[in-house]
């Protein structure tokens, strides 16, 4: 089995993608607070759920990106 190398550029890119997902999850939380008229302190108290949501979004995006990468590899052949 070969060693895998994750470059600093890849780490930075993935971190930026996750931060975008985190921002989206926060926006979802704000929308939920407005829609269900719940208290604004849920911005902080629901942080655990926001992080989990951001990871779910990140995972979905990752799955899409992997699918795109596989497709493009197949197209190149």
């Amino acid at each position, binding site marked *: 089995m070969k060693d895998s190398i994750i470059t600093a550029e890849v780490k930075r890119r993935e971190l930026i993608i996750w931060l975008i997902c985190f921002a989206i999850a926060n926006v*979802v939380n704000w*929308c*939920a607070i*407005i*829609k*269900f008229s*719940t208290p604004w302190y*849920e911005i902080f108290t*629901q942080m655990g*759920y926001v992080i989990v949501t951001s990871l779910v979004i990140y995972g979905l995006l990752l799955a899409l990106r992997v699918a795109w990468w596989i497709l493009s590899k197949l197209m190149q052949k």
Partner: protein
Amino acid sequence: MNRKEFLSDCGKIGFAGVTLSLFPWLQSCSEKAKQEVQGEKARIGIIGTGSRGCFHIKHLVQMPNVEVVALCDNYRPHLEDAAQYYPQAKLYDDYRCLLEQRDVEGVIIATPLYLHASMTLDALSAGKRVFCEKSMGYTLDECLDVYNKRKETNGVLFIGQQRLFDPKYIKAMSMIHEGKIGEVVGVRNYWYRNNNWRRDVPSPELERHINWRLYSEYSRGLMTELACHQLQNGSWALGMLPEKVMGSGSLVHWNKVDERDVYDCVTAIFTYPNGVNMTFESIISNKHFGMGEQILGTNGTIDLVTGMYYSDEPAPKGSGMHQLVAQIESGVMSNSVFAGTSWAAESSPLAPGMPIMPNVKVVTGESTVGAEADGSKELLEAFIHATITGRQPEKVLEESYYATQFALLADKAMHQNQILTLDEKYKIPYQPLK
């Protein structure tokens, strides 16, 4: 429940002090009132020592400021049962002789309905303070006569409408009057039992004497024995009296078993001036639904019997994120609907209901004698207090008067197959309980 527990319950529902000014007939339950009569005793005579009379005796023996000095019943076994509680009391089989006994200050009348008015009139004329079991009278005229006699003699008169002294009713009504359930748009009352409503009869000639509730010669049946209690809910909640009454009654089951002639199945509708309807329904050959008294508001429903509040729009549980996830989940998991059913009932299946106060004491309505913790004891204590002080509490008599009048009017509407209104001559000054 003793006075301390009653006050404690009032405290729990958040208005120990305020309540007494909002509900003036409860003044006698205050500590001040207790001190006022400390060391004094009310000398009481009991007319009618059957099941309900003995129910009151069991409460009276617990009260330190009561001395039962006379007992009266024309059925010897009942009289002897009662005498075991008060061996020193004088025994009578004619209530007029009891009324002549000078040291009797107050009388408790627990006799068949057709005797209530005549006995109450005689007792008031004799200068006694009177507690008479509900209903107030057998006819509309009798009730008016009794009311006028009380006014003329300036005496004390209580009718056995104990819900006025039940903490959960007091709490519920204060919530309703504060607008917590929104605008009151309906009142539902029902009382279902599955029993023959009979007492054991040792010999056939005593049938009508003991089972008087079953014969229209002595009673108006379900309307005066049960409905009378529940009908005051509408007036109490709405602060007004019904404008018209309609109803239907029939004998559907028990007439096949015995000779009774009062209805065993009744439905009545009372319409208030603002258009709100109050219903009363009773069947005594099926008990599935038990007893219920519900005030329906635009925001939710209060069940007075169970002391529960059911919001039409229950507060959603959980954070915004939780609710969002739940909504997405229910959207994804629900069945596809091509066309909604227009007849499907719109209800609040998610509303579990919440108690209106801690430790609600629930009465099932199954007992044909009386239930504990339903306000009966507090009502009796209030009467004892009034017997000693000679002061008639505000509003209780008027409320009882109209509860009986509308029960009788509904019975009349059923027999005449008509929509009826209360004749002007039967209207007395009425101040709503709010």
